[in-house]
């Protein structure tokens, strides 16, 4: 089944590697956004199956973007996976309370990223 994933990250390299990975290995459709603001707009319009959201971004960071996505009736149902280089136990609890579906860690392995997402979201296919 072809999935549609929205990647929100201010880092060009990370966006491109993740997109290449999900498109090439899993055959999924990928939508890109380089900021939280752009990500919220694209999520509302494109209605992806899941959102991969970077934590550390300028202007609107990942947690703030997550809160806005969950507060918006058009996007609140879309599962959000946070992508972060490091996370403390207290942050994990905070993110869980904010409604995050899973936390994935940078650096990710491009060969297995789709499988990680599928596993985290309980999707049957593994890419």
């Amino acid at each position: 089944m072809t999935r549609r994933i929205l990647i929100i990250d201010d880092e060009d390299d990370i966006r491109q590697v993740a997109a290449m990975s999900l498109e090439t290995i899993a055959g999924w459709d990928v939508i890109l956004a380089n900021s939280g603001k752009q990500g919220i707009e694209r999520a509302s319009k494109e209605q992806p199956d899941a959102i991969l959201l970077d934590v550390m971004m300028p202007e609107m960071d990942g947690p703030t973007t997550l809160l806005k996505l969950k507060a918006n009736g058009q996007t609140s149902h879309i599962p959000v996976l946070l992508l972060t280089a490091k996370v403390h136990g207290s942050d994990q609890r905070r993110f869980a309370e904010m409604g995050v579906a899973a936390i994935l860690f940078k650096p990710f392995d491009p060969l297995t990223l789709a499988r990680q997402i599928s596993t985290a979201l309980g999707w049957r296919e593994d890419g």
Partner: protein
Amino acid sequence: MVDPLSKRDETVRTAATLPPEAQSPEQKLQTMLSALWERSRHTVVERAALLQEAGKLWTNDRLDEATRLRAVDSAHKLAGVLGTFGLPRGTELAREAEQVFGQPIPPSKVEIEQLLLLLAELTSLIDRGPVGSR
């Protein structure tokens, strides 16, 4: 214990010898990642150079706050991306640098010397690039 990176390196070497139409999705991805690394290399090199410059300024006690914060940001970004390109040691080194530059108390001379060694290794590693990138 199987080293997943050795499997990845094997995939990279195999991909380099096959035409695109004969490559598996994994091999195609490795070919694309190698091309992306070449396009991104200058940004990575610039970030590593900024870290080295900040480290040198620290040895002379001339590191200002803005440069220190830029160093923390650069180290964080390098930590996030190098392992993804197949340089896990680069991620380790960048994380250590991020920690040192990010600590509230200025480091001792010994810590700065260790930092400079670490940054030299990071720069050398970036210069060599991941397996299959050349």
